[in-house]
């Protein structure tokens, strides 16, 4: 019978134990009448510490577990999940999934992934680097980080704190087609958020660092100082009058623009025809200097995986080459709906990289000349069906390539189709922290609304 991780066990033993639970679940589901089954199990633990104004504020001990199963009776599908791993919960979950599959309707496109697409090669992507971090050490780092921000400048008047987090977890995926594989991974991060005040008005900004290995994190001092610098730069922000002008998305927000592109070429939106990029395969969506790669097998990267959420093998590929769309983002289901093959993107993309251009951040400001540099976006305001884009923004007004003053309470609007065509350059100032790696992106014109 499955139980919790109270006894220390090796990583390999843990994965094997979870694989055994997954096989048991598949056996149970088949016993209850399922034709095909997929079971995913994850367990994890972590520590998260926040310090504020020089003292510890919260210490959180995390311990998570969960199972998710999908069963098929022919092409009828049922799914269930549970945070309980005991036998009675497993039986309840399996029977609920099987009951749903009985009542759901025949969908010829549903089912396990095509067998020939399943991963058979499992390279070590170096994702698991546990950190034996004590609460005391974490508190000290968080305080050091926050202090670096608080005492950076007199204008820093308050703080939301410094925080340090460390998580490690293991996941296993098994299917009734014989796939049963698992791996462990770690994720460590440190962040800081401080408030500056000048002439009675406040601004807040933050910075963070994240890595698979603790040694790859930026130092507490670097993170704290960056948070303070970013906050101070925003003080005395003003609005702008309504106008049309060039807009440069700083690297830390430019990933979002690429995220909207990914949403528009995701299978679910394509087969529902709720995308502004229907039938965009082999179409020129971006200027010819834009190349976007998916790199699932990068060692230690945050988005790396040798197979997707269904077990389909990932591989490096071009999603955009010379501005032309080379492939969609598909799961097995959406691929079948479109008459295509899965691109191993069930659960999302893996390390999307926009190939960096020649120019650095300052050179791009010079290239823009006069316009808006955006460093923060708020609100939803993106319509994937029409491509219409309208979001709240904050950043800096730039003239002759030089930052003039911070701006806020403005919106930027356009249509993503035009915005992609109107990209002037991509910087070499790549932000490597997230699943989308890109430098700053300069767009020739958008509508800015303000006071």
């Amino acid at each position, binding site marked *: 019978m499955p139980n919790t991780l109270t006894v220390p066990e090796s990583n390999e033993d843990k994965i094997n134990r979870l694989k055994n639970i997954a096989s048991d679940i598949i056996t149970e589901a088949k016993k209850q009448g399922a034709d095909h089954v997929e079971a995913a199990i994850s367990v994890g633990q972590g520590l998260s510490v926040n310090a504020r104004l020089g003292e510890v504020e919260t210490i*959180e001990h995390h*311990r998570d577990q969960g199972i998710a199963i999908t069963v098929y009776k022919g092409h009828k599908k*049922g799914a269930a999940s549970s945070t309980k791993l005991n036998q009675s919960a497993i039986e309840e979950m399996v029977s609920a999934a099987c009951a749903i599959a009985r009542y759901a309707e025949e969908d010829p496109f549903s089912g396990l992934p095509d067998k020939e697409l399943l991963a058979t090669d499992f390279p070590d992507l170096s994702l698991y680097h546990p950190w034996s971090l004590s*609460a005391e050490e974490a508190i000290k780092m968080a305080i050091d980080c926050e202090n670096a921000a608080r005492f950076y400048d007199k204008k820093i008047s308050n703080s939301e704190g410094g925080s340090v987090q460390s998580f490690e977890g293991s996941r296993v995926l098994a299917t009734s087609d014989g796939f049963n594989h698992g791996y462990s991974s770690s994720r460590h991060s440190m962040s800081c958020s401080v408030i500056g005040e000048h002439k009675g008005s406040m601004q807040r900004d933050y910075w963070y660092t994240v890595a698979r290995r603790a040694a790859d994190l930026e130092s507490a001092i670097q993170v704290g100082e960056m948070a303070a610098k970013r906050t101070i730069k925003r003080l005395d922000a003003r609005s702008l009058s309504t106008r049309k002008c060039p807009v440069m998305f700083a690297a830390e927000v430019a990933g979002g623009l690429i995220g909207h592109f990914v949403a528009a070429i995701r299978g679910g939106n394509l087969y529902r*025809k*709720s995308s502004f990029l229907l039938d965009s395969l082999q179409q020129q969506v971006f200027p010819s200097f834009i190349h976007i790669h998916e790199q699932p097998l990068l060692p230690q990267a945050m988005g790396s995986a040798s197979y997707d959420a269904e077990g389909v093998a990932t591989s490096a590929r071009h999603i955009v080459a010379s501005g032309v769309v080379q492939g969609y983002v598909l799961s097995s289901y959406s691929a079948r709906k479109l008459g295509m093959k899965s691109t191993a993107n069930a659960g999302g993309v893996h390390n999307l990289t926009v190939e960096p251009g020649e120019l650095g951040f300052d050179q791009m400001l010079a290239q823009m000349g006069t316009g808006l540099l955006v460093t923060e976006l708020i609100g939803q*305001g993106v319509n994937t069906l029409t491509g*219409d884009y309208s979001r709240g923004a904050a950043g800096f007004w730039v003239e002759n390539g030089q930052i003039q003053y911070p701006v*806020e309470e403005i*919106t930027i609007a356009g249509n993503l189709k035009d915005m992609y065509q109107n990209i002037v350059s991509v910087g070499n100032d790549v932000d490597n922290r997230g699943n989308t790696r890109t430098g700053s992106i300069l767009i020739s014109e958008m509508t800015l609304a303000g006071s």
Partner: protein
Amino acid sequence: MSDLIQQAESIILKPAGLVISDIDAVMSRLVSTGIDQADIYFQASRSESWVLEDGIVKDGNYNIEQGVGIRAVSGEKTGFAYSEELALPNLLEAANSVRAIAQRGQAGTLKPTAKHQMPALYAAMDPLASLTREQKVSFLKLIDQQTRQIDPRVEQVIISLVGVHEVVLVMTEDGQVSSDIRPLVRMNVSVIVEENGRREQASSGGGGRHGYEHFTNNDTAMTYAREAVRLALVNLTAIDAPAGNMTVVLGSGWPGILLHEAIGHGLEGDFNRKGSSAFSGRIGEMVASPLCTVVDDGTLEHRRGSLSVDDEGVQSQCTTLIEKGVLKGYMHDKMNARLMGQASTGNGRRESYAHLPMPRMTNTYMRAGHSEPGDIISSVKNGLYAVNFAGGQVDITSGKFVFSASEAYLIKDGKIGLPVKGATLIGNGPDVLTKVSMVGNDLEFDSGVGTCGKEGQSVPVGVGQPTLKIDALTVGGTHA
């Protein structure tokens, strides 16, 4: 009446082999010198979702979630641990790691356990059992067929039906035990329409603390369907939205998301205790026009944001935030209330046992004024009439907030004109309500669709307002 507590005991504790005196033992371990506040929060929920698409019910999901969260607070410091395993040794181990937050001391003495039952705002029922699986599937298919008959331009229909049965039991440091059984249902109808090659999407839905009969009775489901189709057809003819500062009239009901973003978050106790909100230290000041009275009310029967008792065992209440323009009070959980020398307002909420409680909104709304909605529209020479919104966000420190219109019309010479495409509206929280020059007599609540996110935690909420006129707000369209 301790009926609910007995039910919670039998649903959560009994299967784990626990009795209330075991929880007492864990609490004694937790309560030591230097601990100001502690709680043990048990939660067991069952939820399901059904999705119809392409005319067939193709997806169903059933989720079991259960666990316990253990918290100890000393001054401003919080220690927290949680576990999916409810066995006594796990609870004691979690209590040990959590109490280290305070200076170690003698074990405290507990007051005898007191069971405390609040009046219930909704029935202790299981929505999942309110229809059979067969009935759920045939209901979705019926609504799909009827939706497609509304208009030939309807191309795609996606309908989802979600039900949650959640049982919570919380013991606090004073030995009080409270519990709640919280039903929640939600339905959504999303359509895509096409005409002359132009496609538009829209959705409509609702729900509350009921069983599924909320949708099957009174044609409610078809009300959502007709609204989704109407909205999508309106969008087919929408022109580019204007860009710039202008007079904005907000419709009644769901546009109350304005209150949630512009002032609600900024009046949550944690931000104000820390001084990080644009509203910090401003109690007693005019922050809105005298026409505005805004409350947060967790006591409305059956509403999505309502709670008979909050996640810290405090009875829900109606808290006046702004009265005739004057800032009256903040929304508190127990910790922030204690640190600010006030009482909890019953706003201590958490997404689950695996998350820490924080001050959160329930149902936030503006009380009705005296103007006729028609008079409000006819008073505007040039402006925007925004009646539906997709969502919003706020930076509570700078006070800047946005909310995104999904149905809006130009107003020209006092008349509603052409529909415009979705656009984000942006403003400054502490200013926006000072620019309210007319408040309608038509207070309405949203249909039960809101989910609020804060520090990564989602909780169901409600909003409401009458028709409002705001003299100046920035509209983020493309037509400059």
